[in-house]
């Protein structure tokens, strides 16, 4: 819940049209980025002359909150306001932050005037115009670190336009437990970084004073200290991004000019190794193309139907990985077979001359509870032959060729064998299972006419799909 708030005052500020537009624009940008679309921090800026402190940040039932929202002509209750902005292209995205809560946040002044109902909308009463002289800034938040950063940025950027330049008036926040805080913090921090380190990390050799000058140019005021072997840097509140010495080092490199740095080659001597599975894949690809098949590259994500209904099975039996909230059906699951992708490739290339012989060696995804993430990839090899005749002998021949390339003989004891099997994706009596390395490595056969039609194809088709990891 948004129980945190900080605030400050910009006194006697002079806005021009540009400054005013920029003021609104900066709030919007902060809301989109660091405030995470107002979910972490919500900024409210008010004409201080229209209200009187002290201000109270509290929560009330929606029905009890009543005010005229910014740029509206009459008063509404909180629930009515939510309804009012349900179709607003900007504000509708923020309603969910408070919508289902029993109490809504609200800020009142000492006379009960509503400043705002964060994070949705300010009251019209306190709206700022070009003529506003005194601005009250408040940031309500669920993350106090971010709120401090936001407030600091806003006031530092615009205190320039106050009568007393670069002076910000503080505001004291009193919490329910009696604790008080003064905001804005505008914390300046001092860091010490060794010039040697800066030079070493970048790959330059500048003197300490030269480095201090470079950093000062980046608005990180620095000077040399110690025996000249250290640099002290003042980190202003406008640089919330400086959280480690490496951030300072980057600024030094930018000031030096990346393109001025001498390019060197690391002396790192290593011997390269290929990932065995990829090495095998590369070898097989070449020979499959030599065998007359053409390589396809299909999507790893598809619809549930693609891997289940269209192949005559139930989605639960596929052990597929499911995506949460897919935008379209094309991203419902990760594929458990390469076959749908190849069939879709043929369907998209119907005008090509027959026979169409395609292959793909790529990963499918299956659930696996033994893995730390609960799923793993599996490298499959899939080939299809699409023609006026199913060409089972060609697909079978391709399997024999692949086994030959892998030095696996056609023998029951030490090699591979094929035995009749049933599978809803294949034509009855024209399907076989392939056994090798002590396991079933896949299937081949003539595709079932239902599969052919469901993938919007018209010709007979034979297919082969095996896993190749057992052959590593």
């Amino acid at each position: 819940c948004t129980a945190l708030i900080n605030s400050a005052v910009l006194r006697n500020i002079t806005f021009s049209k540009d400054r005013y537009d920029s003021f609104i624009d900066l709030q919007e940008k902060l809301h989109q980025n660091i405030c995470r679309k107002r979910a972490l921090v919500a900024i409210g800026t008010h004409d201080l002359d229209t209200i009187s402190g002290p201000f109270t940040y509290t929560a009330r039932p929606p029905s009890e909150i009543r005010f005229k929202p910014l740029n509206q002509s009459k008063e509404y209750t909180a629930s009515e306001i939510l309804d009012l902005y349900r179709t607003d292209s900007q504000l509708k995205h923020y309603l969910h932050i408070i919508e289902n809560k029993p109490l809504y946040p609200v800020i009142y002044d000492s006379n009960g005037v509503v400043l705002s109902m964060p994070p949705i909308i300010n009251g019209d009463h306190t709206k700022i115009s070009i003529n506003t002289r005194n601005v009250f800034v408040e940031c309500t938040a669920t993350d106090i670190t971010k709120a401090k950063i936001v407030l600091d940025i806003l006031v530092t950027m615009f205190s320039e336009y106050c009568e007393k330049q670069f002076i910000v008036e503080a505001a004291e926040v009193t919490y329910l437990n009696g604790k008080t805080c003064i905001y804005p913090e505008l914390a300046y921090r001092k860091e010490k970084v060794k010039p040697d380190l800066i030079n070493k990390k970048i790959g330059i050799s500048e003197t300490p004073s030269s480095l201090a000058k470079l950093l000062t140019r980046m608005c990180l005021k620095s000077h040399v200290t110690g025996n000249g072997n250290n640099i002290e840097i003042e980190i202003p509140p406008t640089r919330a991004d400086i959280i480690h010495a490496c951030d300072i080092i980057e600024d030094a490199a930018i000031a030096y000019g990346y393109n001025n740095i001498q390019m060197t080659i690391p002396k790192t001597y290593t011997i390269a190794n290929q990932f065995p599975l990829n090495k095998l894949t590369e070898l097989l690809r070449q020979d499959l193309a030599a065998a007359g098949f053409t390589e396809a590259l299909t999507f790893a994500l598809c619809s549930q139907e693609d891997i289940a209904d269209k192949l005559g099975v139930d989605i639960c039996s596929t052990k597929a990985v499911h995506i949460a909230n897919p935008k379209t059906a094309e991203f419902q699951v990760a594929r458990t077979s390469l076959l749908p992708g190849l069939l879709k490739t043929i369907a998209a290339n119907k005008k090509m001359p027959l026979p169409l012989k395609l292959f793909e060696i790529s990963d499918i995804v299956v659930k696996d509870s033994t893995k730390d993430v609960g799923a793993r990839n599996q490298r499959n090899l899939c080939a299809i032959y699409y023609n006026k005749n199913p060409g089972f002998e060609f697909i079978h021949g391709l399997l024999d060729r692949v086994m030959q390339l892998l030095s696996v003989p056609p023998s029951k004891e030490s090699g591979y064998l094929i035995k009749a099997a049933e599978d809803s994706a294949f034509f009855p009596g024209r399907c076989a299972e392939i056994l090798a390395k002590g396991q079933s490595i896949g299937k081949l056969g003539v595709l079932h006419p239902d599969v052919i039609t469901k993938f919007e194809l018209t010709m007979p088709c034979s297919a082969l799909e095996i896993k190749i990891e057992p052959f590593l």
Partner: protein
Amino acid sequence: MGANYPSLPACCVALMPSSEALGTEHCQRQDTGPPVRSPQVIEAEQRSSKRWELTPEGQEIVQEGSHEARVFDSIPAEGLPQSELMKLPSGKVGFSKAMSNKWVRLDKNADGGPRIFRAVESVRDSVREKLQLVQQGEAESLEEKDRNELKKRKLLMEVVIKTYWIRKGSAFSTTVTKQETDLTPEMIASGSWRDLKFKAYNFAALGIMPESGHLHPLLKVRTQFRQIFLEMGFTEMPTNNFIESSFWNFDALFQPQQHPARDQHDTFFLQDPAEATDFPMDYLKRVKKIHSQGGYGSQGYKYDWKLAEARKNILRTHTTAVSARMLYRLAQQKFAPAKYFSIDRVFRNETLDATHLAEFHQIEGVVADYGLTLGDLMGTLREFFTKLGISQLRFKPAYNPYTEPSMEVFSYHQGLQKWVEVGNSGVFRPEMLLPMGLPEGVSVIAWGLSLERPTMIKYGINNIRELVGHKVNLQMVYDGPLCRLDA
């Protein structure tokens, strides 16, 4: 030859598709192509001409009369209910035409429903007359606008007729010597080839391409990149895991849990399996601390780090998640310098367009060693891109949550006459490396680019769907050249 053809000079012969001479409909006959010609004996020239003919509907009208005339004829003196008229075969078409010709009129308020009456005594079926003229071969006598009107009503069509005009060639002769086409084993054995005349080859024609399979263009480029990394001594990382936990994909890389990239909009989260269960817990504790409190010389992000968020499974958004796993593994042993690379699929849940898909391939290179500098990163990039044939490089400051300094890499594109981005790079943040247990003096430099972009530029492809996925242009795959990347 029909009467339509001008008389021919004696030296020429006009060849018509022969069915014309036989009186059969030429549009039914199939075009068998130009007559065989061997050079020098005769010369042939193709000409085409057009003429007008009736469509089947047009012919029907010549016989039965136009729809509107038939409608007119079927209305008796007392008129006809509209509903009945519409039942007649020519009813619908004829009625609207007859109305626009003002041949009939409609009385909406008649007894028994809307009724149609003749508006004039008699009509002249000019449409039928015009079509009869065409049938008799006098289409030219009609005005062009009449012809176009009838064509619009699909009663008339223009037919193109091709003819071949043949004249004697320079080597014309009435004797025919048969020419051999090719050597045969018998000719070789008997030596008879010495006495035979062989037909000239037409070297301008193409040969017969060998029957072959083909490799996919994107994967051909991948093979070359793999080669380049191996030549530079980089070891391939095991990237065969599309499913990754948020921990390795984001948290281990010091990307905060509130970062926009972890939104539903950019990342695919999993419904099943929804959460990762296994983590190196000591390391996880250090990651939690550096995010929420800082340490190792860092302020940290100072927010509430949640384990539940880190456990969420996703489809990895970058292969840098694998680099993180590898660097962690490297840190668990006595440190030895390493160079790693990977080229594999990543997933983004963003808006799709002509150059963006939900899945694409990322190329990543990583070097881990003592004392690496930003200059070393730039030098490594120069060697890498030189092998791609890209020599002019410039670097621009950039931002990544897990590298600092970060650089965008640009190269000058001669064709586009401008600097284009070719990659992203940086030095991994200490907040990422130190909790893993890597020694303090060790720097890790890294860079990445997509595989699709250079492939599309190299092969001149504008729409990524023609390259990746099932809508691939197979002809392009068949015809694709070698992927040649030359320094």
